[in-house]
């Protein structure tokens, strides 16, 4: 990718991160850690990969995205707002009683949300159903989904993995946000799901391992996925939970906690300073 495109994506991702902080701070709740770790990938999907129309969110031929790790919707909402699906001002209403921006993705009420999610393990199945429907309807759209590494402990993920390979869903590309942490601590200590690359390979998937914060690697992976025939692709993205906000990085404690006013101000300052360097 050329340096201008890379810089644009980095800037957009930083704005998405600012949106995440704004949402979670104003809600006094929500999940910043896993939102920050998936922010670069979601930014890439909406600004470089997916064929979507902000002014026609239900367009039949659009590419679909299912955030299987639904608790990290602050990243998705911020990206959708950045893309123009709804006003950026609305981000501060996240989780409020009179807002459409529900605590977890709500397909019925939020423009651009292709599937409701939040109960871990379920989104990947819905993504399989969409991919199957795309094939049955001879549509060329692609289906994207994002999973958590903790989420991969759910049995349903593996039911879906089997299904996707069995029905050769090569229009399906999943990314697994391998930030190493879940609520109770390190995934390897809570219930070790590794090696995830070998497991998905054994289930019949094409697997690509990348640094989930490197836009060149993200681009290469999504491009490679499009060339794979007869198999779904898993992008195993090594990430940092809390990425971009120093005091949140690699801390399980920031999984589902909102920053206080001082912390918020510090996070905003750090991200703005980063944008200045671009």
């Amino acid at each position, binding site marked *: 990718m050329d340096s201008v495109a890379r810089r644009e994506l980095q800037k957009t991702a930083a704005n998405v991160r600012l949106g995440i902080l704004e949402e979670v701070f104003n809600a006094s709740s929500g999940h910043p850690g896993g939102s920050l770790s998936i922010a670069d990938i979601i930014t890439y999907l909406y600004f470089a990969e997916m064929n979507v129309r902000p002014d026609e969110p239900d367009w039949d031929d659009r590419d679909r995205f299912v955030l299987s790790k639904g608790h990290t919707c602050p990243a998705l909402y911020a990206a959708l707002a950045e893309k123009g699906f709804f006003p950026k001002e609305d981000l501060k209403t996240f989780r409020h009683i009179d807002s459409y921006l529900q605590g977890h993705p709500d397909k019925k009420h939020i423009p651009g949300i292709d599937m409701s999610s939040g109960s871990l393990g379920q989104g990947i*199945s819905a993504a399989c159903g969409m991919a199957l429907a795309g094939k049955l309807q001879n549509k060329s759209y692609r289906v994207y989904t994002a999973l958590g590494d903790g989420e991969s402990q759910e049995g*349903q993920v593996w039911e*879906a993995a089997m299904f996707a390979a069995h029905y050769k869903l090569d229009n399906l590309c999943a990314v697994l946000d391998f930030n190493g942490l879940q609520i109770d601590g390190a995934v390897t200590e809570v219930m070790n799901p590794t090696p995830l690359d070998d497991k998905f390979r054994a289930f019949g998937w094409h697997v690509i391992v990348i640094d989930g914060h490197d836009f060149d690697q993200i681009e290469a992976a999504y491009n490679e996925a499009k060339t794979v025939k007869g198999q779904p692709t898993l992008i195993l993205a090594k990430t940092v939970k809390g990425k971009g906000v120093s005091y949140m990085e690699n801390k399980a404690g920031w999984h589902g906690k909102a920053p206080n006013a001082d912390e918020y101000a510090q996070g905003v300052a750090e991200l703005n300073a980063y944008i200045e360097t671009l």
Partner: protein
Amino acid sequence: MAEKIATREAYGSALAEFGHKYNIIVFDADLAEATKTIKFKKEHPDKFFDCGIAESNMLGVAAGAAAAGMIPFVSSFAMFAAGRAFEQIRNSVAYPQLNVKIGATHAGITVGEDGATHQCLEDLALMRTIPGMVVMNPADAVEARAAVEAAILHKGPVYMRFGRAAVPVLFDANNFKFEIGRGVVLAEGSDVTIAATGVMVEQALIARDLLANEGISARVINCCTIKPIDRELLTAAAQETGCVVTAEEHSVIGGFGSAVAEVLCETCPVPVLRVGTEDVFGRSGKVPPLMELYGLTAQNIVDKAKRAVAMKK
């Protein structure tokens, strides 16, 4: 004697038939021979997808296919559809109001020999608590076919409950009218109303004759749709007959009887006695002795009807 057909047979035939008329797809979880979706598979092999023994994923896949504009049916035994995949039905299907049709077979005690692990007596309770879910429990093959077509035409999630055992065909296919949410008065009566659903409709009709021998006039209402329940018809029946007996092949907790009681205690509080399984698990056996053992016979309805009449003020 009337011809006997299991409602699951009628379900499979209806899928195969309507597969030519409507653009439906069917998922099953390694039970196509039993749920009878095999009939659809034979006629529409490219629209049938086995999910293997993975019911949770099957419901999620169906949700995704519906989100992408398809009309998916999913089938398994009631125990594994409503039970195993309850949360997938709630969160992936019903919360986004997706157009998924759940055809659950082998519901209730009439599963017979397979016993308690397979005799789902809780599915009506589970499904009717979910916002926006339509719940239907056809009484015979004619009603089962009609329910399938109504489900296809309805936009939104539907749960249909079918049985394993062959049951008499009660209704005339040639002039059968069906509407979701409508109960039907099968026989008039003035002393007591028997509101029944599913296989208990036949027992209710038998009970009516037995009661007539004792000078008690019973109205029989068939409620195929348990949600949305026919409030008007039930309320009018309660007002006109003064007491009600409900009958279902399901636990008395949370199912059809509960739904009727919920309505009537708000609109017309009269004695409501419920016939159903009494907070117990089932067991293995042949169907007729099981129905006796668990209190699901016409005689059980008669006994409760007499008590209900005696309780009237």
